[in-house]
């Protein structure tokens, strides 16, 4: 699946999702929380990630985050917006600095808001019109509230968003 980075560019995806009973690959691997806890991974050099399901609060995996470079969050349906709160909490409460990747049924129209909540990358459907994703990202560049993408804490002062 194509992956868009924070600049809207299609980038290669080095990560592999690994089932609990599958052997660990050499490269970056996305594991479940259970496996991250159960297995001794201290000798491993390649980066680790976790797939957070929409019902799990980031606090529940807070102990694992310092070892992780990637958290994926998911929109099972475009209307299901729990991922927005998860992403914000990962940044704001857990202080997570790695990659947050949005997966699932994401609409181009949600991409800007996901970015504002702290998401870094998004998986887009095979064959998606990347130019449309770009346009949807750019079309509204004024925001009325502080979020994770603006360093300034100006409260309601209207801000023009930096185009990534």
């Amino acid at each position, binding site marked *: 699946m194509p992956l868009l980075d924070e600049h809207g560019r299609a980038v290669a995806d080095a990560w592999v999702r690994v089932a609990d009973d599958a052997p660990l690959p050499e490269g970056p691997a996305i594991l479940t929380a259970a496996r991250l806890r159960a297995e001794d991974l201290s000798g491993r050099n390649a980066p680790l990630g976790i797939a957070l399901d*929409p019902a799990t*609060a980031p606090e529940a995996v807070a102990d694992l985050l310092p070892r992780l470079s990637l958290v994926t969050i998911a929109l099972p349906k*475009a*209307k*299901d*917006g*729990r991922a*927005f*709160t*998860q992403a*914000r*909490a990962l940044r*704001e*409460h857990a202080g997570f600095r790695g990659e947050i990747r949005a997966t699932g049924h994401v*609409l181009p*129209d*949600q991409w*800007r*808001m*996901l970015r*504002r*909540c702290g998401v870094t990358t998004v998986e887009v459907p095979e064959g998606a*019109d990347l130019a*449309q994703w770009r*346009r*949807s990202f750019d*079309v*509204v*560049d*004024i*925001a*009325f*509230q*502080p*979020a994770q993408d603006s360093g300034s*804490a*100006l*409260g*309601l*002062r*209207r801000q*023009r968003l930096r185009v990534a």
Partner: protein
Amino acid sequence: MNALVEPLAPPAPAYPPHARTYRYDEVDREFLQERIAEFSGQIERRLRGELTEDEFKPLRLMNGLYLQLHAYMYRIAIPYGILNATQLRQLAMIARRWDRGFGHFTTRQNIQFNWTKLEDVPAIMRALAAVDMHGIQTSGNCIRNTTTDEYAGAAPDEAADPRVYAEIIRQWSTLHPEFTWLPRKFKIAITGAPHDRVALQAHDVGVVVRKNAAGETGFEVWAGGGLGRTPVLATKLRDWVPEEDFLAYLEAVLRVYNALGNRDNIYKARIKILVRDLGPDFLARVEAEFARMPRQRYRLDPEIVAQIAAHFAPPPFPRLADDPPAYRDALARDAAFAAWARQSVRPHRQPGHASVTISLKPIGGIPGDCSAEQMEAVAALAERHAFGEIRVTHVQNLVLPHVRQDELFAVWEGLRAVGLATPNIGLVSDIIACPGMDYCALATARSIPVAQMISERFADLDRQLDIGECFINISGCINACGHHHIGHIGILGVDKRGAESYQITLGGSATNDAAIGELVGPGFPYDQVTDAVETILRTYVARRAAGERFVDTYRRIGPAPFKEALYAAAG
């Protein structure tokens, strides 16, 4: 449909100088243009098949566009129900040009047009944007238009001005990155007066702006109210949230809801269900979130509050005395004027002034409907007599907030000329009714015609005055858009084996003594519902003690006498 929007930067419209609506600046206008471009693009993608109807639906809803029974319905935001005369004239123009010459004011202080064509929407959006208006977030699972006291800035009992904070909520909630894909719609009401005129406890969040002894501003916050198929009154979360933490606290409430609200069952998705199911744990979670969030980031800067408050500064009232001779003489001279004034004129904090409520409930009419001519007439009267400002009430009427008492007679004459002087505010014919089967795709029964029948039955003003204050609310299905649960008399139309049946609840209230009405018994067929209301009101008149309103009597004597009167003959 061709290229939809050429981004134009419309010039600032010419507004009445003293109308206290929030004044857009270039940033606000540019934002609106961007949003129009975005939605126009979404319409194009839908027409090209790049968006499925399922994907398009939440996007169009978020822009106020519903698919109804016969056509699209376009709902326009009137932020906290405040308009100026220029804006109202533009709505009249839109009603005439793109609808059937009418608009319909709603219980959320918005206006909707019931006969909209999809291909006209971009043009209507531009016409709205020309007067700083739009349909954004009037629908969909996001934070909707915040409602407030229609007498804000005028009511003598007001402790703090709710408009300032309603505007702050409007800005904060506009395309909020985290709260635009909530489990369900989210409605906030805010008041600054001890007397609740906003149905605070029927809202997802209700806010009371307060002042403490030191003169500081803070907020009492309620959450978890809502009607629909499971009516619940809101629970108080806090007596006092300091002003600087206002948005932080709202964020905390919304965060808990967005994370934990039900996503599987649309009937369990409102925050009221979460608050009810979690019990005290809901508040504990909100407080925990509030305690750990970086509050500095969400701090409401007093400077910004001051900037926004400047938009709502009092208009330049002349110094006048109460009860001027011109007003007194007119009252004595003209009984029809006096009857209207008794229901429609309310005291004002500024001596020599009054607020005027304009009834959109003519006998036999459609509650909340207003013709283009009437809108223009109200706009003209507002300009001449009320600093060019108009309010929409949550009971689907209009208000001229600031009128000189010595000009009330002229206002009345102007209203009478266009059929807007029905003297029934607060009486049995001042009915709230949802669109029901006449427009709404979800309806299980007619709603408007029931309102019309009841209104005609009680057309006689003396009889209405004898009955006194009584609120009748009618919904055409279980979704309860007519707020029947909180009407003194609530009427819910359901489908019973293919026929309309109307269930009646009694004793509801939308104000400080908020209550959910109790079902009185089995439903009534369409052609008997007016008789049932008649029986209920006759029972009240026969049993009332001196000075008791309908709802007082009901609370004192309980449902039994009403049940007996309604069902004895049949049983």
